[in-house]
């Protein structure tokens, strides 16, 4: 029996050797990808990280990197598990010492566990549409970036969309908030409550226990309540089950508006006909015909370097979201190089500065062919979100179609909530917030 351990020992030795491999050479910009492609949400991860890696490849193939600095990356599988996420982060961290692109975990739980660690290690942590939302306040969270938009701003934008649909008044209307009973679903409650008292609509909160593959009771309750709209923050199987259950009780799908974790092909296709007419928020559009996506298909997949095994995912909401996340990350690299030296790899601190001083206008987005892909973004020390805009899209049975322009949430109402929460965090942790007015650009 003892014999069988020898190969195992040898293998451990090999893996140790691999772990201690030297850092990436200087003229490469390294992206630590704390990703997931298996487990309950594996399909979502495959599309997102597929898009992310494809864009990095595209930048390398199309223009030879950013000012000659090639994009490099390494993936580590987290299976959407917090402890594994931390292990992955620690493993990739040593390679990110010299040059570090923002870390994308696409998991609220992992982001929460990494916020403090990344700040201590001076590595920028991007949380695009997920994660610790009060990190919008950059004075307390210098290294965490909930870029583009947050759960709360999204909820506020959805309310605004409904208000526009209802011809400007929500007074006396009834809205049900049906949510995944976790940090993800709970964050938006305060925002919706604030909106409810502002717009005088009646808000009913209905939580769904994880994983959400049974929602019979909840939807019967909704049927009884007869709300005008349902705002739906689901994730994974909860999305299909929700749509199917809505069909089962005969609730019209075009009165359900989901969050962007409930608005991808992975959510609607398995629900079949039940999803038709369903709407969801998104901060990036779907479609293969967008110039950038079409060019990626031609360049990267034409060149045989595509990351997706299943090319039918090209142009899906989550794939395009991965591309959008990569676009912002690469633009941040560009911004950092403008300030700290072109043709050099940027370290975590330099990238942090760049992410805090992003200014990507429509003109620039148009230049890279991403004009309709994502909204304009302009970040600052006090505002790590930088946009707060979403579009509402509708599932027509075969594809997602945008049905609104970019809608911004009620910043005046929501941002103070972040500041209060960040202040409490700073107090608990004994952090002295930076003075944002003294930050140099």
């Amino acid at each position: 029996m003892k014999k069988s351990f020898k190969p195992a020992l040898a293998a451990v030795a090999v893996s140790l050797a691999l772990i201690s491999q030297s850092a990436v050479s200087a003229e490469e910009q390294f992206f630590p990808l704390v990703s997931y492609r298996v487990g309950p949400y594996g399909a979502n991860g495959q599309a997102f990280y597929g898009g992310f890696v494809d864009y990095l490849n595209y930048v390398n193939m199309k223009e030879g990197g950013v000012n000659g600095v090639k994009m490099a990356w390494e993936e580590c599988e987290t299976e959407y598990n917090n402890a594994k996420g931390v292990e992955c982060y620690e493993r990739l961290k040593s390679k990110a010492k010299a040059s570090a692109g923002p870390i994308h975990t696409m998991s609220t739980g992992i982001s929460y566990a990494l916020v403090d660690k990344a700040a201590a290690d001076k590595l920028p942590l991007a949380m695009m549409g997920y994660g610790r939302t009060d990190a919008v306040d950059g004075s307390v969270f210098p290294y965490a970036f909930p870029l583009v938009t947050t759960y709360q701003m999204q909820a506020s934008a959805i309310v605004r969309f409904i208000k526009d649909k209802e011809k400007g008044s929500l007074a006396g209307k009834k809205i049900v908030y049906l949510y995944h009973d976790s940090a993800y679903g709970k964050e938006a409650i305060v925002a919706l409550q604030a909106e409810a008292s502002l717009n005088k609509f009646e808000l009913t909160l209905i939580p769904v226990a994880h994983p959400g593959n049974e929602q019979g009771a909840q939807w019967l309750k909704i049927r009884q309540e007869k709300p005008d709209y349902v705002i739906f923050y689901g994730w994974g199987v909860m999305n299909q089950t929700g749509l199917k259950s809505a069909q089962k009780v005969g609730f019209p799908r075009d009165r359900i508006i989901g969050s962007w974790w409930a608005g991808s092909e992975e959510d609607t296709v398995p629900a079949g006909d039940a999803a038709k007419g369903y709407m969801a928020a998104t901060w990036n559009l779907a479609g293969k015909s967008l110039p950038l996506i079409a060019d990626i298909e031609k360049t990267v997949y034409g060149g045989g370097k595509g990351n997706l095994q299943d090319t039918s995912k090209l142009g899906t909401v989550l794939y395009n979201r991965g591309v959008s996340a990569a676009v912002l990350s690469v633009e941040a690299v560009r911004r950092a190089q403008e300030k700290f030296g072109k043709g050099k790899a940027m370290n975590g601190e330099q990238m942090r500065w760049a992410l805090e001083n992003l200014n990507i206008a429509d003109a620039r987005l148009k230049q890279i062919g991403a004009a309709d892909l994502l909204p304009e973004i302009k970040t600052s020390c006090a505002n790590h979100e930088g946009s707060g805009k979403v579009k509402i899209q509708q599932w027509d049975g075969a594809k997602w179609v945008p049905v609104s322009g970019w809608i911004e949430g009620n910043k005046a109402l929501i941002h103070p909530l972040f500041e209060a929460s960040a202040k409490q965090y700073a107090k608990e942790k004994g952090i002295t917030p930076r003075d944002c007015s003294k930050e140099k650009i």
Partner: protein
Amino acid sequence: MLYREAGQFKTSYAADQQLFPIRQDRIGVLLLLAAAFLAVPGMASEYWFSAILIPFLIFALAALGLNILTGYAGQLSLGSAAFMAVGAYAAYNFQLRVEGIPILVSFALAGLTAAGVGVLFGLPSLRIKGFYLAVATLAAQFFIVWCLTKFPWLSNNSSSGVISAQKVEILGHIFESPREKYLLVLTVVVLMALAARNLVRTSTGRAWMAVRDMDVAASVIGIRLMPTKLLAFAVSSFYCGVAGALYAFCYLGSVEPDGFSLEMSFKILFMIIIGGVGSILGSFLGAAFILLLPIFLDVGLPWLAELFHLPFSTATVSHIQTLVFGALIMFFLIVEPHGLARLWQIAKEKLRLWPFPH
């Protein structure tokens, strides 16, 4: 040759009943501790501390707790992660709400809180046995996590239910670097492991084993089942609770109730089954195996795929990892159903005769 008990005569009861009766074991344990306390802190990298050694020690402690309950007292439980959650949230609240409380005291109180909750969920064990009890402990798993999500007071009214552990400060010294945290965790774990080793050879430990082997027979020979079983639940949950507090304060930093999932309970159960049910050493071996195997697969498989130019996509490699993990668990069970600790025992027996087995 090296490992021979012959000639070690015990002349007093104290000598006969000491923790490690064999001299070579004593030397071995001392060497191991010396290595863990002196050599490792000097050699290991930050990655090793914060991604491998600290979680290894914490999970070994939780596995030890479960092993006391399952391996020694024979009560199968699938709720260990929930008791860890109780420990983590209790320690956080003690730190938050009691002014100036030393951190180690709040860890101990967290353990006691978990023990209290453990006794509550241990009550059904007086009537229910075997897999019925295992599934019943799932009630603890889901109910506790739900409570932590639902009562905002427990997470200091944070809108997400996530708590961020406070600074670890002992006698004015702040434990911040992974190395310091490692030493703190190591000290706690070593002390508690020795205490466990001590506990299982007392009359309590023997009573547990009697209950495990057959509770009807145990009650016939005069062991009172109720206090014995409930004590096992209390001690086990205490260990899990302290492990949970360390998990929050020395490992992750921020924890959410959902993080203490059923999956984690299963992981702890894997550790004791792979490591060895009813063995203190087994808890450590099992924790090492279950934590290192996925990391090893994650690093090794892509490397192998590249080495042999296999056309695997990243997703496929990830799937193969899951598959191999499952296959290896089955393989180990088939080869040695009594766990890695049993392998060590066999090795010891062989060592006794080595190098002249005949």
